[in-house]
């Protein structure tokens, strides 16, 4: 079955430290991969995507993600966390080129402490 896993319900990090939010996937074809962020009482906002090409993709607010095909992972990273990065983060995958649907992970709550 095609799926996305976010193994951590919550990630805690001190402001100024690097952060990583993990995502692994299981799909049969070549995936399109996305990260979204949800701030309190708001809808989801797009952060970045991997379609093809360079495995390291850069997105909004200083975030980046690395596509690793051998480990079927797409971890979200930021070199220096801000308190304002505290939010709920979702990884999503489009299973193959023939569908416009996304499969979402269960979300990881990022808490950045001052």
């Amino acid at each position: 079955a095609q799926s996305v896993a976010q193994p951590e319900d919550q990630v805690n990090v001190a402001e100024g430290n690097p952060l990583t939010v993990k995502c692994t996937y299981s799909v049969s074809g070549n995936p399109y991969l996305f990260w979204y962020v949800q701030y309190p009482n708001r809808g989801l906002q797009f952060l970045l995507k991997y379609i093809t090409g360079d495995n390291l993709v850069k997105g909004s607010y200083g975030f980046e993600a690395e596509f690793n095909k051998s480990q079927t992972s797409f971890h979200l990273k930021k070199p220096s966390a801000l308190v304002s990065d505290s939010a709920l983060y979702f990884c999503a995958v489009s299973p193959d080129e023939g569908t416009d649907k996304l499969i979402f992970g269960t979300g990881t709550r990022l808490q950045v402490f001052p």
Partner: protein
Amino acid sequence: DVKVTQSSRYLVKRTGEKVFLECVQDMDHENMFWYRQDPGLGLRLIYFSYDVKMKEKGDIPEGYSVSREKKERFSLILESASTNQTSMYLCASSKTSLYEQYFGPGTRLTVT
């Protein structure tokens, strides 16, 4: 900016009522989606539409129906609301799978 709007931010309905959730997008996107978001379960796709009058079931379509009579508008219908349909409902739109989905602010529905 792409804008996806949803008719209500908060809604309280009684068990057995018919409920309509409306979603409008202003970017001429082909695809529109309805999700529900529950703690610990992430987003689950209820239905999506890839063209006017075209729809496809998602992962949890039971108890729901949809309508897309115009390209910009996608409605979610709860035929007979039940308490287990209490949730946050999110609408989204996109061009194609190569492009990101744009989300509305959500409707928090409570069924009592």
